[in-house]
């Protein structure tokens, strides 16, 4: 039976929440010790930026959505990812992790590269490629990082915020994979032509240069925090587990390419890490940020203020 996207859209609308619903001055901020604060700050900054970049990914998906209903769902997901970034920035402020002026932390070079690729190619990527890439990143980065955070931090406000965020993310993953089912059930010639369309050298190179090191860089940050990388790998495995449940997702060539990449990511002894991903983390560190130019103004939209006058 076809998935009811209209019902999903209604649920999304019904489940909206606001930063203004949360008491950001409630007790609990004192549980953030100086040691934990120093350890968590770069992690939180990366998390905020990954949500923010994820939001931009959904903006591109909305342009490619196969139906007006799915387009509206992606429009909400775009806003919700932005809300997650805003809420996480508000947590950073609560924990004293921001500068006095409350300005946004600088993104790392891998995030800057992701911003550049999304700005340049995001809206031209075919639906099959983008709709497959986004759930992988959501499983790998969003899902895993949020779990780490909840294990490390006991602040009740943080747990309140992430109950909302996890509930949103569960809907994102459900809708993402249902869209893959819909695409996979489409005509074979369309799947093939779209897949061939994704093979432009600048797109393939852009994706490799950006997303391969992005995941490994995040793994390095997690390991630096003393957390087991196995959990990140378990999160990545969800991509093939959930995708494997579908009847038609396996007809999408991009799904198989990314599933193979996910399998390489979770196998720490694979040559993928030694000869591609890890060297790329080091190589991208050498890229001068100035070369990437000024990002588009969506990167300035983030705020930790629940109320705007």
């Amino acid at each position: 039976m076809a998935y009811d996207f209209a019902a999903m859209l209604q649920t999304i609308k019904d489940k909206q929440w606001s930063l203004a619903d949360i008491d950001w001055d409630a007790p609990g901020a004192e549980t953030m010790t100086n040691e934990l604060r120093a350890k968590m700050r770069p992690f939180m900054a990366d998390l905020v930026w990954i949500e923010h970049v994820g939001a931009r990914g959904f903006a591109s998906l909305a342009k490619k959505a196969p139906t007006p209903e799915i387009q509206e769902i992606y429009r909400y997901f775009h806003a919700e990812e932005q809300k997650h970034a805003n809420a996480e920035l508000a947590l950073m402020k609560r924990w004293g992790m921001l500068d006095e002026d409350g300005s946004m932390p600088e993104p790392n070079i891998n995030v800057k590269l992701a911003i550049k690729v999304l700005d340049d190619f995001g809206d031209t990527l075919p639906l099959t490629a983008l709709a497959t890439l986004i759930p992988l990143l959501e499983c790998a980065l969003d899902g895993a990082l949020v779990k780490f955070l909840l294990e490390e931090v006991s602040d009740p406000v943080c747990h309140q915020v992430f109950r909302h965020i996890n509930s949103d993310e569960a809907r994102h993953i459900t809708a993402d994979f249902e869209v893959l089912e819909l695409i996979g059930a489409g005509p074979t010639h369309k799947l093939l032509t779209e897949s061939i369309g994704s093979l432009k050298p600048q797109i393939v190179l852009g994706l490799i240069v950006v997303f391969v090191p992005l995941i490994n860089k995040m793994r390095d940050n997690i390991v630096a925090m003393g957390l087991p990388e196995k959990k990140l790998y378990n999160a990545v495995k969800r991509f093939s587990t959930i995708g494997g449940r579908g009847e038609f997702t396996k007809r999408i060539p991009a799904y198989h390419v990314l599933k193979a990449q996910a399998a390489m990511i979770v196998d720490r002894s694979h040559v993928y890490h030694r000869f591609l991903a890890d060297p790329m983390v080091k190589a991208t560190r050498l890229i001068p940020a100035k070369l990437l130019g000024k990002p588009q103004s969506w990167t300035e939209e983030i705020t930790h203020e629940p109320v705007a006058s």
Partner: protein
Amino acid sequence: MTLGEFRGEVLRGTEWFGHDFAGQRVAVVAPGREAAQIVPEVAATALSVKVFQEEPDWVVPMPVPGPSVVGVAVARVFLRWQVKDPWIRRLLTPDRRFGSRKTALGLGYYGALKRPGCKLITWPVYAFAPNGIRTAEGIEHRADVVVLGASSHFAPEGRTG
């Protein structure tokens, strides 16, 4: 969708026309075709204006005769000429497949959006709070007055709060 508990003034239809908004924070909730007419007028007197654009429409500076494809071409050039920020331009561009192919008149729309107190917001509006509008990016935008476009999603509803 309802106006819920919003305690401020709500203007409907053409009530905004000729209204003095001096010292007020105004929220315009409307699709682009209506915002193009409402915003220049409101921005002329308001303290600040937030434009909650429900969907973008092609805006032309003057009536364009001929088929809609000509109007859209003129609207594209007008948008490119008036709005230099590529992200804002993207937000003002109708969807290629499901978006509108009609054009609306709005010579002063883009100019008004560039005014210091004027901000374009395209996040979905999901609720009206007592003091403002809540959008899906999690922020409550405070407003003293709400101007509803005639074809806004909220226009058919009366005040229920």
